[in-house]
């Protein structure tokens, strides 16, 4: 059973539908007791890092997510949900993340060649680096929408995508996974990644 962590950020409709279309039982909840029953957890997120981190703390779900990750339960962060797994973000100031993975989140501006549009929005290709979740996704196109990306995460880097420079597309370390792209918006390639996550 997949539990989608609801901390008041973003629209979870498509994410929930995508798991359902795979025949997985899925629920959305903000209750620790309920989420504790799930055997796979998904941390979603869109919008600004600081707002999301604050909401996660206010709901007490920050310690819950860290504790759950430590138990070995498969955890998948998506988009901003992936960025929250890192130590720190430099989006409008400096904000601490969950610190489950080593690395920080930095702006694309000034780091990618000028002339490339920001946000990095659209379909881009995965280049697999390591790990199990994305091994079969090498070369596939998935859908991205973001203006910040993770750096200094060499020990968990699972896939990159090329946007002037290599951009962190996915991370994997033990039972903790993250996708910068939206698997729930990436057609068959994305659904396949979610299906494999559920099989872990």
């Amino acid at each position, binding site marked *: 059973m997949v539990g989608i962590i609801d901390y008041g950020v973003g*629209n979870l409709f498509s994410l929930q539908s995508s798991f359902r*279309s795979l025949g997985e039982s899925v629920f959305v909840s903000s209750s620790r007791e309920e989420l504790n029953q799930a055997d796979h957890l998904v941390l979603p997120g869109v919008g600004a890092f600081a707002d999301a981190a604050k909401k996660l703390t206010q709901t007490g779900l920050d310690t819950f997510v860290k504790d759950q990750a430590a138990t070995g339960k498969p955890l998948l962060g998506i988009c901003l949900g992936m960025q929250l797994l890192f130590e720190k973000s430099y989006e409008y100031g400096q904000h601490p993340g969950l610190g489950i993975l080593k690395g920080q989140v930095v702006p694309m501006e000034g780091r990618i060649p000028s002339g490339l549009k920001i946000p*990095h*929005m659209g379909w881009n290709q995965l280049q697999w680096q390591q790990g199990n979740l994305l091994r079969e996704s090498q070369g596939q196109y998935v*859908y991205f*929408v973001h203006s910040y990306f993770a750096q200094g995460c060499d020990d968990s880097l699972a896939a990159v995508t090329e946007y002037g420079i290599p951009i962190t597309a996915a991370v994997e370390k033990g039972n903790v996974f993250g996708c910068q792209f939206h698997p729930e918006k990436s057609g068959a390639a994305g659904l396949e990644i979610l299906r494999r996550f559920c099989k872990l």
Partner: protein
Amino acid sequence: MITKRIIPCLDVRDGRVVKGTNFQGLQDVASPVELGKFYSQNGADELVFYDITASAEGRKLFTDILTRVASTIFIPLTVGGGIHTLEDFDRVLKCGADKVSVNSGAIRNPQLIAAAARRYGDQCVVLSVDAKRVDGHFRVFAKGGREDTGMELLPWIKRCVANGAGEVVLNSIDTDGVKQGFDLEMLEAVCGVVDVPVIASGGAGCEEDFVTLFHRLPAVDAGLAASIFHFGQVQIPHLKHRLQEENILVRL
């Protein structure tokens, strides 16, 4: 690198796709769910649903349909038509839309884009513009292209992007329906003043029109069309192979 996007647009009235289609193997060519599924399985990179309903009942049907589309199709969905308030944004986003396109709503209330971008993020707000040449100037038209607003195109687009529009769909009334190719001159002018993605609309009649578009204007991010896809004159998988032969990056 990011691919060029090919986007079919579906006009929906009272919950049904307007304009006949002639797909083989589709039971109900007027069903937005069936047609959406067909496109998403056949290479579309994104879908645009445009609600051309006038009545409240029709609008309710549209949101029901949208919910069904969004629970079966897992590629980005943009929704437009009848978006005048933040409540309209809310209504379609809750049904699973990823982006919301505003046209007349932004002309009537120029604050709408700024308010929506603050609440939902720039990436969620798409400015759609109908434009036409009047006395040698590009002018913005409202009400589905029927009414000359008197506004100049480029300042209008710049202002909307500054307010937070994350993407621009440019529909040239001059080339729309003529099927002689996109309005390259107008598109080039728009690409010169904004740094957000620009989607070309209006005028595509054949595959070569897309090849010409992306060759001549590399700054254009996507090509949008309706009837040539619905009538099967251009088939998206074939179009994408053609683009790839021309070294234009596409998702295959």
